[in-house]
């Protein structure tokens, strides 16, 4: 049976070149970078090199990169760690309604438990956030704005550079004037973006994005799982979420995941080096899949903007059927995808991303994400296109639901 993995937005396999870079640090170079001897120093040097390399690619200073355990921790530090450290300057934050859970749940926690106010920006029907919308939500007491670079479910790419630029201008023109604050403070709001899904496809030059905080992780770009980074612009204060040693300036204590960090640095180098060519290749396959499904399967809807989306993301709602059942049918045919259906989530709530587009529950339940990657070929797409129609027909025959045509016509 074919083996077509189309869930690269969930995670990617390790690139062999990344594995090769990591291996010495899992074997002979096992030292603790904090140790005061040669073995430790070797590890420390390698860690410093990895930090330098990543900093160069992101166009930041090495001391502005914080290594973490992954995207979730980086997002949590950016939201919880930043807001807690800066709450004397205001207790309002702006996030989009379709952020990753690692941002949105952290924001909701601040709202529920720590007296913050949160504005949730709704994307438009195509899954886009506008510059005007963001700027209109900023208040004098807003300390943080968080907008994801590319959405993990529907792949839409937000105008981060434009928003970042406008926020920087706003800061210059509107010194933070909260009564409790030091006068003439130009630092707020700070702008965070979660770029986890963007690493393989988009430009990560922080100087062009005008962000102050940026989350990336290893496991979406053919690097290892369990490792991530947070870019923190110099001068931006973050309160730690865990306590211990002085690693990562005490903001993220704990012995560094040396091999993981080296793997992430290598993965970032490869991903950014190959992103233009790989994106061109994937866009063709992506559009072939979208057009093919629309041609062969009636009553479907493409979720997310048709062109302002990641080159590897296809998200389609198949009306009248339930995603989990469909995923299991696909799985039995050797196709591995994911769904926004409630049934596959631990909370049994359907995708907040699809709901944020203004679509009803049954459309969210029927949404399926195919995320392409290095291994994806035109033959894979052809196989998927041949496999899907009879499976959809079979599940629709079992279904009593008929979704309102206004959602797919």
């Amino acid at each position, binding site marked *: 049976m*074919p*083996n*077509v*993995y189309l*869930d690269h937005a969930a995670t990617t*396999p390790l690139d062999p070149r990344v594995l090769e870079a990591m291996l010495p640090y899992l074997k002979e170079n096992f030292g603790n970078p904090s140790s005061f001897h040669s073995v430790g120093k070797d590890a420390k040097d390698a860690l410093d090199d990895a930090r330098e390399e990543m900093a160069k690619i992101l166009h930041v200073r090495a001391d502005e990169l914080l290594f973490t355990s992954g995207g979730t921790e980086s997002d949590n530090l950016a939201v919880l760690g930043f807001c807690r450290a800066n709450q004397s300057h205001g207790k309002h934050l702006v996030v989009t309604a379709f952020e990753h859970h690692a941002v949105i749940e952290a924001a909701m926690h601040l709202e529920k438990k720590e007296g913050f106010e949160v504005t949730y920006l709704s994307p438009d029907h195509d899954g886009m956030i506008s510059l005007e919308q963001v700027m209109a939500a900023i208040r004098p007491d807003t300390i943080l704005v968080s907008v994801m670079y590319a959405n993990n479910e529907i792949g839409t790419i937000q105008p981060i550079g434009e928003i970042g630029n406008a926020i920087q201008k706003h800061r210059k023109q509107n010194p933070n004037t909260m009564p409790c604050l030091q006068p003439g403070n130009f630092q707020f709001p700070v702008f965070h973006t979660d770029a986890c899904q963007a690493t393989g496809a988009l430009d990560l030059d922080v100087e062009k994005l005008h962000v102050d905080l940026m989350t990336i992780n290893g496991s979406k770009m053919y690097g290892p799982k369990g490792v991530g980074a947070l870019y923190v612009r110099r001068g931006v204060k973050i309160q730690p979420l865990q306590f211990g040693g002085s690693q990562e300036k005490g903001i993220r204590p704990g012995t560094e995941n040396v091999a993981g960090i080296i793997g992430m640095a290598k993965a970032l180098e490869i991903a950014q080096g190959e992103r233009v060519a790989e994106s061109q290749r994937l866009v063709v396959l992506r559009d072939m899949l979208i057009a093919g499904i629309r041609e062969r399967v009636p009553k479907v809807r493409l979720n997310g903007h048709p062109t302002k989306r990641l080159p590897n993301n296809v998200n389609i709602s198949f009306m*009248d*059927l*339930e995603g*989990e*059942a469909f995923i*299991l*049918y696909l*799985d*039995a045919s*050797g196709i*591995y995808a994911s769904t926004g*259906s*409630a*049934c*596959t989530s*631990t*909370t*049994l709530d*359907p995708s907040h991303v699809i709901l944020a587009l203004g679509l*009803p*529950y*049954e459309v969210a*339940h029927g949404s399926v994400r195919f995320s392409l990657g290095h*291994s*994806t*070929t035109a*033959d*894979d797409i052809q*196989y998927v296109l041949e496999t899907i129609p009879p499976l959809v027909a079979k599940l629709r*025959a*079992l*279904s*009593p*639901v008929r*979704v309102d045509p206004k959602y797919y016509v």
Partner: protein
Amino acid sequence: MSDYNQPPVIGKAGDVTTKDGGKSWFYTDVVKDHFFNPRNFMHEDANPDDYNAIGKVGSPACGDELRVWMKVDPATEKILDFRWKTFGCGSAIASTSMASLMVTENGGMTLSEARTIKPQHIMDRLGGLPARKFHCSVLCDKALRDAINDFYRRTDQVDKMVVEASRIIDPVSKVTDHDIEEAVLDGATTIEAVQAKTKVGIGNPSVLPAVEELIRFYREKYFGA
């Protein structure tokens, strides 16, 4: 084709029942058989008038909708045919398919026998379901009882209809014990999660101890913990 020299993520032949307390999403071979080859579903070209009772439960907004059609012999009250359609996940399809088999095998159950079917009976025949998917099999016994009532309604035997009474727990939010049961089955096993789903006790905290007791009761009933 993908060639990561790794076993597929899911769906390897033979992945079996959840003996791990429901942490896994994998299904038993019986569940898979019913899921991939559903029995007795209502065909597109079937005539609903051939059936003398219908039942319905859930709504697509909740993620599950189940409709059933029954043909009951008025003389013996035996279920001669049982058909269904569901907007539901793998478990919903499999458990409904299994239920349709159970009520029609060996010449068909009588309505009073069918009324005693509990989710546990369906689960047993399926060899178990992941704990979180339990609510799917609760839907089909409810739809069955709804159809039984419908048969008695249509045949003017209103006295034989059984109303599933529910008790109001919170007079402010009008939340019933049944609502709490549903919330627990939907995975809300803490007071906070149940409140998020039902709003119970939000304007009336005095009812919370009773709510907690019910949550514990339903948790034990359905998840054994």
